[in-house]
């Protein structure tokens, strides 16, 4: 199925948010996530099932003022 990750369309066989992060090489990285504009805490990634067309945002620490 197709999922938007940080604005880019990604083809994935789906499953959980955790699986997707793994697949995309985020394991062990300091990130936070939202799906369809809702925050998804790390503790929920294992159980959060993604659906076709979901919009996933993956963010990391960055410079700020």
């Amino acid at each position, binding site marked *: 199925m197709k999922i938007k990750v940080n604005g880019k369309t990604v083809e994935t066989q789906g499953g959980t948010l955790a699986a997707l992060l793994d697949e995309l*090489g985020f394991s062990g990285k300091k*990130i936070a996530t939202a799906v369809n504009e809702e925050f998804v805490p790390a503790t929920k990634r294992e159980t959060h099932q993604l659906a076709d067309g979901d919009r996933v*945002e993956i963010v990391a*620490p*960055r410079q*700020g003022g």
Partner: protein
Amino acid sequence: MPVFYGTEIASRMMLGTAQYPSPAILANAFRRSGAGVATVSVRREAGGERAGQDFWALIKQLKVAVLPNTAGCHSVREAVTTAHMARELFDTPWIKLEVIGHTDSLQPDPFGLVEAARILCEDGFQVFPYCTEDLILCERLLNAGCKVLMPWGAPIGTGLGLNNIYGLRSLRANYPDVPLVIDAGLGLPSQAAQAMEMGFDAVLLNTAVAKAGDPVVMAEAFARAVEAGAMARKADPMEPRDMAAPSTPILGKPLL
């Protein structure tokens, strides 16, 4: 020294982490200034990318309190979701809440700001609202649960200093016990000193330091100016007067 939500900070200077020529210069600016709080943001990162991870490593070794922001958020929803991601990412209840209402001036949206502040305070966040000097807005933010206020001196990145001295004085006078931080708009240390002389508790800077010819020296300059202003406030300055008064005694002047 200022106390934010029960945490005392060892410096009245808070410093942003953006726009520095290099990570090394950023780090030195923090060291030389002794800034006690660093503002940071959350931004997208790709799987392969290391930028965020490296940046975080840099920040950690600064050994300062981290204040994540919701910079660039124009809606309550955006700001709230961003705050949640920031809380998990930086493992802190602190959030510098920006809800921008006007693109050219980056002016805070008083209406969205109060709503977002209420939602986040109820959810256990410790909110640092980027606000204006508006007395009623500030009262609403306090009622929403904010225990710190961060009024602008001037629009972000302008370096204009304190645009509304009267309004800022009046805010200070109305809330003598609330920690007040001048956030945004400062361009010169003398302006930061003036803010302290007016009784503000701290300043939050970024552009004026990062975009100076020598950010490290400028960071220290601001740090000293902030201390100077705070000491002056404490030392109870003389009253200005219109007529001159000799400092050297006239008594005993020889007749020549």
